[in-house]
Structures are given as C-alpha cells and as structure tokens.
C-alpha cells in the first residue's frame, strides 16, 4: 500500500491531465467543477464570516458604538444572504455532492456535464452581482426581504440583491436537476436503490427540494423586484397587496431550504459513522427513508414562521401540528447513528470527531425546534435570539460541521494527500467549543427577550453578549485552521493512498485523486453499502495511534 502511494503523484488523475486556467474554466469534469465551487464558496464563507464577526463586535457593548445603525443593518442582512444563498445552500451539494455523486454510483460524470458547468457560472454571475451590491452600498432588508419594507421603504440596493439571489436560484435548480437525473439514470450495474450510499439518498432528497422549492423563491423575489422597479402592487398594502402573502411564498421555499442545508450534512454523517465504527449503518432503510420524509414533510410546515405575523388561528394550529412531523424522521436519524456504534470498533479520527459534534449540536438544535413549533412558546421567543441560536445550531452546528467533517473525510480522495491528523483533531475541538460558547448564551438571551437584529440593547443583556462575542473569535480560529492545513497538505501532506480509511464506498475503489472518468472500467456492484464486516482494517489509521 505504502509503495503504491508513493507513485500516486505521478499517476494520471483529474488534476494533472491538463493545466492552465482554460482547462479549469471550461471543464465539464464534475470533480473540477466541484473544486471551482469549493474555492468560490470558501470565499463567500469568509466574506459572510467577516460580517458575522463585525456583528458580534458591535454587540460587545449595549450601545451602538462600533458602526452606524444603518451599517449594522446591512451587516446582518448581507451576512444572512451570503451565508444562506452563497455558502450554505451550495456548500455540500455543489462541492462534495458534485465530486462524489457520480463516483458513489459508479458513473463517469453527471448526466449533464455542461449544464453542471453552467450552474457554476450562474453561481459566479450571481455572486459577482451580490459582491457588487455589497461593495457599492449593500442592502438592509434582512435576508428575509420582508415587504413592504423591502419594496417601498428601504433605500438600499434591494433590486440588485434580489436579482442576485434569483439568478443563484437557477444555479441550485440545475444542480438539483443534474443530481436527480444522474441518480435515476446513471447508476452502475448492480447499484440498486437499496445499495445506494446514504449520502446519495440525502443528496437526492435535497435535489427534490431544489427542484420544487427554489422556483417559488425565484418568482417571489422577482415579484419583489417588479414591485420595487415598476410599482406593481402585489405585496405592498399601500398598493392593494398583502405582505403576509410574501411571507407565505418566501417561507414555502425558505423553510425547506433549511433541509437543503441539513440533509446533505446528515448524508455525510451517515457515511462517516459507519466507516469509523467499522459497521453497517443501523437501520439502513429507515435512515434512507427518513431523508425522503424530511424533504416531503419539509414542504408542509412553512407557516410556523408566521405564528405572530397575523395568520388565522386555525392555520397556526395546522402548521404547528405538521411541524412536529418533521421532527420524527430527524430523531430516527440521530437514534440510528448512535445505534450504529453499538458493538462496533470506534476510532476517533478527525471526521468522526466532526460527526460527534454534528450529532450533539444537531440534537440541541432539533430539540429547540420543538420549543419553536409549540405555539405558546413561539409567541414569546419568535424573532428573538432564541431563534438565532436555534437555527445556527442547525445551520452552523449542523450543516457546517457536516461540511467540515465531509471535507476531512474525502480530502484524501480529492487531493490525494493526508492532512495532519493532530491539527485536524485540534481544529474540530476548537470549532466545537467556540460554537457552543457563541451560540448557547443566545438561547438564554432569547428567552430573556432580546430581539434579533438589534444594533443596541438594554445593559442587562451585556454579559451574555460578551460571552457570545468571545466564542465567535474562537470559532473564527477554528474555521481558519482547516483552511491553512488543507492548503499546506496540498504541497507537504503525505500521499493518502486510494483508501486511507478503509471505507466501503465505490469512490474509495478508484485511485486518489481519481482519473478524469473516475473508473478505468465501469464497476459492477455486488455488495451492500457499508459492508464493513468484510473489509480489512486500514493500515494508516491503525498506524496513527
């Protein structure tokens, strides 16, 4: 193994077949497009992260003393828009998904490689427009674009931001379309639905949401743009419209969008936990079906964001009840991951640490979701820091932990190099501690009654805000570390070998980095997924200790 690994650098792979900007910018190789996405979303992650740090610094003291109120409003708006639309939504699907979906099912590429490239370009066009908007004044509506503030009152660049997200929507739609078609049509012989890796199941569920939800936000934001630009009266009550209709349409997409972010992360964890427990995942069918159930039920719960907005009492009751339905498949997943470790052979490698972190933080995020779905409590905590803490536990504690876990798990495959394991574990610990310190105090703040989007606040909230700001700086260090040692490993990292974790997926049966068409011959699948009982233990991992 070690001897073959020495030759990996010289072997032909998708990274060294062609060089030069042209070979990257006009590529139709799903792996190269995945790397293009990786670089772009990392950029937006740090832009959004910078805004987050500014927000936290402003909130260090009760008075609004670091930035002006208007600047603060732009900061949280653009933090939200960039993180949601330009980082979280494309994060796992467009990078790891793009890289892994064809390989995991034994295909040479996605069904529509050129459309795949087109969706990256759409993302870049949208991102450029967004950055132009940021740099020339920004937008201050909150990422939710609530009308009539966004259509009739804000004097910032709402149209530009709206169009950026509109265009970005097409990027998501095309990615989702590509995945669904690929998973249906391109599976290798023997790769039946019951043998699909769980990451594929969750990506499939995510893609369904992309396809059915994204068009609705696209048309909604387009109507906002029309209303602002051409003075149509659709959402503005002064022109005969109804602002609650906007909220309905907005959340019809934006609630399922939460599942766009969390489902792929769940898929990543479903890959990592069996691998580092050396065991078949517990209750494969239930974990797979719960992904689909989350995607479908996710479309039935949107108005739980509107409990105090003025919707009817009866529809509030319906949506509250439906909201609890989503919690069941989420709970099933957590229980199954836990049960997978039972009588396994567990190692604490970096990806596994992120998986532990994910399970812990997602559990807390999910449980606090129960608070918010309970009507009586939602009235009190709606639009407070409780909500902020809850969705950061899901989106950052869940989705970003999943993303980082997946990056560590598949980095040897993507780059052909090993990252320094000790640094990996350290970063995982820092992220976990920093995250909890940042966001746990916000639950208490929220129940105390501190509203969200406040530039200044009553002094009694200060201690908890200071804790949160302190945590955010630790978190920032935790996020910078992997970027540094990943880059370092590209040059100095030890060659990884084809399958350093001894993992079972098809993607591990090809070389690291893979060749342009992934497999020298189309693989024929004869085994179940996560067939770890019949896999030898990997050498590298055991050498590590």
């Amino acid at each position, binding site marked *: 193994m070690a001897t073959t690994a020495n030759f990996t650098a010289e072997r032909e792979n998708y990274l060294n077949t062609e060089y030069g900007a042209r070979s990257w910018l006009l590529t139709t190789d799903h792996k190269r497009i995945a790397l293009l996405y990786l670089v772009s979303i990392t950029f937006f992650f740090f832009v959004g992260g910078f805004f987050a740090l500014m927000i936290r610094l402003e909130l260090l003291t009760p008075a609004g003393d670091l930035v002006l109120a208007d600047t603060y409003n732009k900061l949280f708006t653009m933090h939200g828009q960039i993180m949601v639309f330009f980082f979280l939504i494309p994060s796992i699907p467009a990078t790891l998904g793009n890289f892994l979906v064809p390989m995991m099912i034994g295909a040479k590429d996605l069904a529509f490689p050129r459309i795949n490239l087109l969706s990256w370009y759409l993302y870049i066009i949208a991102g450029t427009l967004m950055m132009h908007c940021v740099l020339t004044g920004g937008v201050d509506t909150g990422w939710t674009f609530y009308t009539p503030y966004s259509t009739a009152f804000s004097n910032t660049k709402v149209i530009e931001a709206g169009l950026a997200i509109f265009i970005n929507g097409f990027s998501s739609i095309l990615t989702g379309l590509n995945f669904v078609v690929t998973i*249906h049509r391109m599976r290798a012989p023997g790769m039946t639905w019951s043998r699909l890796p769980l990451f594929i199941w969750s990506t499939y569920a995510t893609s369904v949401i992309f396809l*059915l939800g994204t068009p*609705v936000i696209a048309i909604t934001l387009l109507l906002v743009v029309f209303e602002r630009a051409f003075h149509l009266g659709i959402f503005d009550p002064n022109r005969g419209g109804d602002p*609650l*209709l906007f909220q*309905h*349409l907005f959340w*019809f997409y934006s609630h399922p969008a939460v599942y766009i972010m969390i489902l792929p992360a769940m898929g990543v964890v479903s890959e990592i936990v069996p691998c580092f427990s050396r065991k078949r995942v517990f209750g494969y069918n239930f974990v797979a079906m719960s992904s689909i159930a989350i995607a479908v039920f996710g*479309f*039935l719960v*949107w*108005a739980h964001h*509107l409990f105090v907005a003025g*919707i*009817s*009492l*009866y*529809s509030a009751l*319906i*949506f509250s009840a439906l909201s609890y339905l989503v919690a069941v498949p989420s709970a099933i997943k957590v229980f199954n991951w836990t049960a997978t470790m039972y009588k396994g052979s567990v190692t604490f490698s970096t990806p596994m640490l992120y998986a532990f972190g994910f399970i812990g933080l997602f559990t807390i995020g999910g449980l606090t979701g129960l608070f918010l779905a309970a009507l009586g409590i939602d009235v009190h905590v709606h639009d407070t820091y409780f909500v902020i803490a809850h969705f950061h536990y899901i989106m950052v504690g869940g989705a970003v932990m999943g993303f980082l876990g997946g990056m560590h798990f598949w980095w040897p495959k993507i780059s052909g190099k090993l990252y320094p394991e000790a640094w990996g574990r350290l970063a995982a610990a820092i992220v976990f501690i920093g995250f909890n310190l940042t966001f746990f105090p916000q639950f208490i703040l929220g129940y105390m009654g501190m509203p969200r989007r406040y530039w200044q606040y009553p002094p009694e909230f200060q201690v908890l805000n200071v804790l949160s700001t302190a945590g955010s700086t630790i978190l920032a260090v935790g996020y910078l570390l992997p970027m540094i040692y990943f880059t370092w490993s590209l040059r100095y990292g030890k060659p990884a070998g084809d399958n350093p974790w001894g993992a079972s997926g098809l993607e591990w049966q090809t070389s690291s980095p893979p060749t342009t068409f992934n497999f020298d011959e189309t693989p024929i699948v004869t085994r179940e997924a996560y067939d770890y009982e019949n896999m030898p233990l990997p050498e590298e991992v055991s050498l590590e200790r």
Partner: protein
Amino acid sequence: MSSQNSEHSDHVLPSGLYWGIWFTLIVLTLVTAWVANIDLGRLNTVVALVIATGKAIVVVLFFMHVKYTSEKLTKVVVFSAIFFLLILLALSMADYATRLMS
C-alpha cells in the same frame, strides 16, 4: 432490445389523432368563452377551471405523449409537481379562508 423499449419507433401516432385533439381544444376554448357570458353564479369559475383542466389534461396526455410513454418516472414527476403545487395553494389558502373565522 433498446429499440423496442424506445418510444421513438413504436409510437408514431396517427395524424388524425392530433387533428382531433386540436379540434377538441378549439371547441373547448369557444365553449369556455361562451359559458362565461351566462350567469351561473359561483359555478362560472368552476366551469372555467374544469374546462381548462380538461384542455391541459388532453395536451399532457396526447401532445406531450404521457399517455403512451413506457416511462413510469415521467408520470411520477408530473404527479409530484402537481401535488406540491396543490400543497402550496391549499395550505396558503387555508390561512386566508379561515382568517375571518377567528
């Protein structure tokens, strides 16, 4: 093997069928425009929507070949798209329709 599965060769529909569909659609258009001028109360909307749905079904089944496709997946896609559209319409309408009750 693959040529037998294909829709290409074995589903060339007679042109008379297409003309028949066209005739039906034109007649239904005239009917819906005519019925709209008769006072049926609330039924006007219902009739208009029933006729429109009838026309849409005919187009989907014959012009878009869904009736003849061997591919179940196409039908699944069509049904799930309509299903989720109805969820959007029904659940948001549920709010508006019950607002006055409370």
